[in-house]
């Protein structure tokens, strides 16, 4: 999933300063799963904004809405009948949501309520970790099913480096050395010899280095 974290409420209040009618829009996709942008979080942020308004003796009308997804235009369309009632929209979806809303409703002020962090998963309740860098050319099958692009601090294709120490990365004792895990897993599977083959430098053309990305699947295009 796309993992995000809530922006500090203080920052959000600064963004919407001067506006009296606000709509908080959540998303039932990834941000619901990582407990930052679903219906529950919409209600919490809306409540906090109302309390802040009350504290400063300002009447702020705060609407709440949670869309199925904010990364599909048909769901963004559902805002059509209500959006005119508000001076500003706070989207607490990942970075895609506020941009889709902004593109569909160019006259409306749109604010991001979360910071999008990474593509990852929940390793424990309340703890998420990065697993994918979205490089556009998956190579995890060479490395025991683990991604050195996303999980090695240097994105090494041939590791580990000299900074690997007792299974930890030199950047922090909190960070696992993924190359330590890769080597141990390949040993356990009797495939260590596969790591002796030097992997050539990775082409980053499919990653962000190739500029903004777009994908077209002709069989789906109407």
């Amino acid at each position: 999933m796309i993992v995000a974290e809530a922006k500090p409420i203080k920052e959000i209040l600064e963004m919407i300063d001067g506006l009296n009618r606000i709509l908080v829009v959540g998303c039932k996709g990834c941000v619901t799963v990582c407990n930052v942008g679903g219906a529950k979080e919409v209600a919490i942020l809306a409540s906090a904004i109302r309390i802040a308004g009350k504290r400063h003796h300002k009447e702020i009308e705060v609407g709440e809405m949670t869309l199925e997804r904010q990364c599909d235009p048909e769901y963004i369309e559902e805002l059509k009948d209500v959006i005119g009632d508000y001076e500003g929209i706070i989207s607490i979806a990942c970075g895609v949501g506020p941009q889709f809303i902004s593109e569909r409703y160019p006259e409306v002020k749109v604010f991001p309520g979360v910071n999008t962090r990474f593509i990852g998963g929940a390793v424990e309740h309340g703890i998420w970790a990065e697993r994918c860098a979205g490089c556009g050319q998956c190579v995890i099958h060479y490395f025991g099913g683990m991604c050195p692009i996303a999980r090695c601090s240097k994105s090494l294709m041939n590791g580990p480096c000299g900074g690997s120490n007792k299974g930890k990365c030199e950047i922090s004792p909190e960070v696992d050395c993924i190359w330590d895990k890769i080597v141990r897993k390949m040993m356990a599977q009797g495939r260590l010899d596969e790591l002796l083959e030097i992997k050539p430098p990775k082409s980053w053309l499919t990653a962000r280095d190739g500029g903004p990305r777009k994908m077209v699947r002709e069989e789906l295009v109407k």
Partner: protein
Amino acid sequence: MQDFKPKIIGFYCSNCASSAANIASKMKLEMPTDIKLINIPCTGRLEVLHLLKPFEQGADAVYIMGCQEDSCQYMSGILKLKKRVEHVKKILEQIGIEPQRIEVFSLYAGKGQDFINIANGIINTVKELGPAF
């Protein structure tokens, strides 16, 4: 400020805190009238939104009374709540509301006097702080 009658919401669990309330009642101890008490099965049921809503409705303070950390009937209810209260304190601070307006207490089932003392303590704190809105 002398006429200030604080609006305070007190949540208390059905186990230790409830027993303490019963003891207080049997001891004929008087509960301050400024507080609206709400009984809940376990403090772990209270979510962030439940703790914010009273403020949205104009409460000057919210406090919660639950079990001791090692004797929650549902194992970790009070521990979960304490983390949520810390989170709510941070939210309140960011919107300019004193974090002391929300507190959580662990009670012993047999200590009726504590149930009343905590209520009086909260009233004093709120009177010092003044109205929230």
